[in-house]
């Protein structure tokens, strides 16, 4: 099989570019812990509301400008409703669905995670810029899907 010299060169260049991409991704994922949200814990979707984690969906301060909150993603709302936090706050979100699959996306941030029934999803973000961020469900979840949204106000 004859491979033209320019084709060899091109395949090497192309593969090197892909290797650079993979290298950057691997470095961020394994050394800076910037990998995608991949929480492993399970939960029975039919008892989410009564469970220890999700019985209380209040915003809790757990450290210096550090908060955690359990959110139930259900047809067609995120419980609790709108949130308010001080600028620079780090928030750890814990999510589960009692019904179908939902998505949890906060605009202007990288917060973007699937909420699949049976699984608990976790994602964290530090909100440096003040403003009103839109939280929306980005996975089709039924005929009221477009109404599933909240805000998080950073002051």
């Amino acid at each position, binding site marked *: 099989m*004859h491979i033209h010299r*320019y084709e060899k060169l091109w395949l090497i260049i*192309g593969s090197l570019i892909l290797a650079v991409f993979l290298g950057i*991704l691997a470095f961020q994922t394994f050394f800076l812990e910037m990998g995608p949200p991949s929480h492993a814990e399970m939960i029975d979707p039919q008892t989410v509301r009564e469970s220890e984690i999700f019985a209380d969906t209040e915003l809790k301060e757990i450290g210096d400008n550090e908060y955690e909150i359990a959110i139930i993603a259900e047809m067609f709302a995120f419980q609790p409703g709108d949130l308010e936090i001080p600028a620079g706050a780090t928030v750890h979100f814990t999510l589960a669905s009692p*019904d179908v699959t939902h998505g949890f*996306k906060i605009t202007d941030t990288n917060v973007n995670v699937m909420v699949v029934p049976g699984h608990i999803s976790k994602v964290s973000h530090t909100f440096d810029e003040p403003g009103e961020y839109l939280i929306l469900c980005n996975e*089709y979840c039924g005929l009221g899907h477009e109404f599933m949204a909240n805000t998080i106000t950073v002051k």
Partner: protein
Amino acid sequence: MAHINETPILHKGTAVNEDAAAGITGRDIRLSAANLFIAFIALLIGGFAGLLQGLVRSGFFELPSWISYYALLTAHGVMFILVLSSFFSIGYLYAGTSRVLGGLANKTIAFGWAGFALMTTGTLIAAFLIVTGNANVLYTFYTPMQAHPWFYIGLALIVVGILLNCIGMFITYQSWRKRNPGKLTPLFAFFANAVFVLWVFASLFIAVFVIAMVIPWAFGWVATIDPMMGRTLFWAFGHTLVNIWMLTSISAWYVAMPKIIGGKVFSDSLARVAVVILVVANVPGGFHHQILDPGLSVNVKFLHVIQTFMIIFPSLMTAFAMLATMERTGRAKGVTSLLGWWKTLPWSDARFFALIVAMFAYIPAGLGGIINASNQINQVVHNSIWVTGHLHLTVGTTVILTFFGISYWLIPYLSGRKMTPTINRLAVAQTVIWASGMLLMSGAMHINGLLGSPRRTANTSYNGHSAAADWAMYEMLMAMGGVILVVGIILLVYIWAQLAFFAPKGKTDFPIGEDYSPSDASPLFMDRWSIWVALATVSVAIAYIIPLIDFASGHNPGSPPFLMP
């Protein structure tokens, strides 16, 4: 492989179709034409559903209460992604295989019609339930959303029908090999066989999911279902489908395009290598749709990212091969400047023009795909309307424009007619219209996605939120693109009707290119598909064993159905 050197002429990828000269038989024509007919109906229904969506989402139009935006979305997805692509690939690949292998085997015809009957019945059942609002689950039908149980029966019939067509293809392919010992199958047949091998992989995943898991659950025979298992099996199917379209399309780029431009296939043997890599590496690519799912570890996800990146490699080969084919053709005409050969290409031939525009669209389409598959970067674009824009560049432009280009020779080839200069000019105009509509629409979708606008969401201002207000302008561009595309569909239907029934009688050939260097033929083992199927199974095993065992080991309590609506 000593005998290759003894009789090199027999090993040219395309030279051994001596018995094809007789032309295609009536029964092969009827089978292909029937499949293409359903594909064209699907294009019409799916296209108008798409237009309505664009108008609704941008707020130009409100739907009557008896049909929801999501029913249209389901119709658009199922008609284009499942029905159009499967029927078209079968109609086209069967016709081309008949052309290069000298007719389809008797049993192939029987399997083909049986498959056609099942697929058509399944499509009718699914379409009826979608239109009547009983299956608002979109084409991904993620459980535990549940459609009318018969919707899944419809899907299962389509899948089983496709599997029967696969068997039909393998029978003709293997019987040709038996009749021609020591010969390499023609390149087109090699492509066709590869597509059907991928169909088998895709169908098995979705068949297990629909028949063994969803149907018993939807009819209430079992109480719960594991949604993660469903997502994983669906995307093993869904991403394989993507490469089924791509392989079908690039078969025309590799085999027909050289003949159309008056050149030769750049390298028969390298084309086969690209095909084999695509088949072997393909299925695990499905996992890049699940990068943001819970329940899969960071390590396993990174393995999947590497496996997905492997699928990019054959596209690098394809880019070079296509350009080299065109450059050599131009050089043969005496062009000496660096890029002057671009000018000598037959731009006014609709068959070529549609293909070259499709190839250009494949550049941003492929680059978007690399970004989507890039692990944590996926958080920027996942489930945003960027992904919809990506899909409209890949399937909506690259694949569909290639299918249109193919139809400009395939329909007259089957109907025994000739394309007139007028129809050719209309077809060139159609390509321009389609490409500009898609450029406008998918460009707006890409930008809006980066701004955060979600895909698959009906018109909403999110309570007048300022972020959503920024999206409105791009939604208007999307709708304008949609209107342009519908003009394209109407023009296309006119062209197809002309080519099928009204154009002057005559002989149109199915263009099959010859290999540039027949002495550089592939070794015969390239035709032994057992090797490639085994390797593909290994790559599937590497990706899937850990997650599937993890899901199946019973940690998930399971979900009861939620009927939509």
